[in-house]
């Protein structure tokens, strides 16, 4: 069974709410406290339900997405994280080359939320469908 595509996930209200919550929690307007936030998106092959789990808060320029918690009956289908540092100070809000590399290496789409909106890098959907390792497919 195929996993939902990145565009299907982006249209999901729960996913969009998670993006908005992560962005708000990133404190992008606070020059001292701004930091990356993010998490994991899971899909259930039987019910097509989507559940979301937050990762621990990141730092100014990175967040660790290497330990998705297992959710029984669900498969990891995407990650998301914020880029809160502003274009006005010279930061690039778009996905970094590292983001692109790690997304392609992980086998699932990675969403990046910034002041410019939502970008997605990596595959269009989870490689191998909703089967195999419930965490990252690779």
């Amino acid at each position, binding site marked *: 069974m195929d996993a939902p595509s990145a565009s299907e996930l982006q249209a999901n209200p729960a996913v969009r709410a998670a993006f908005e919550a992560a962005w708000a929690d990133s404190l992008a307007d606070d020059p001292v406290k701004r930091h*990356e936030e*993010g998490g994991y998106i899971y899909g259930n092959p039987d019910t097509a339900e989507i559940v979301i789990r937050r990762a621990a808060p*990141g*730092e*100014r*320029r*990175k*967040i*660790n*997405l*290497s330990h998705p918690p297992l959710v029984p009956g669900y498969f990891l289908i995407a*990650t998301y*994280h914020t*880029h*809160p*540092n502003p274009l006005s*100070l*010279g*930061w*690039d*809000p778009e996905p*970094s*080359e*590292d*983001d692109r590399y*790690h997304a392609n*290496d*992980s086998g699932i789409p*990675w969403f*990046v939320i910034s002041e410019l909106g939502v970008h997605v890098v990596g595959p269009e959907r989870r490689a191998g469908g909703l089967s195999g390792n419930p965490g*990252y497919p690779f």
Partner: protein
Amino acid sequence: MTSTAPPYVVSRQQAIAIAEADAVPVYGDLDGLTLEVSLADDGWHVDYWVREKRVAGGGPHYVIDARTGAIVSKKYYQ
């Protein structure tokens, strides 16, 4: 007698120092980033990469003029 100008006057270490002087006030520190430096036709390429598996993030990337030490271009990835 003729003399040949050296191909560049900014050393690798000087290029790194120029990049760090710009990057540290922005990033706070460059801890945990992997440094790669190469000399190309357009200058020194000083690139800091996140090499931790499945850690989302980014580092600064520079092109520094090898004759003047001026920063030709820079990107602050996150």
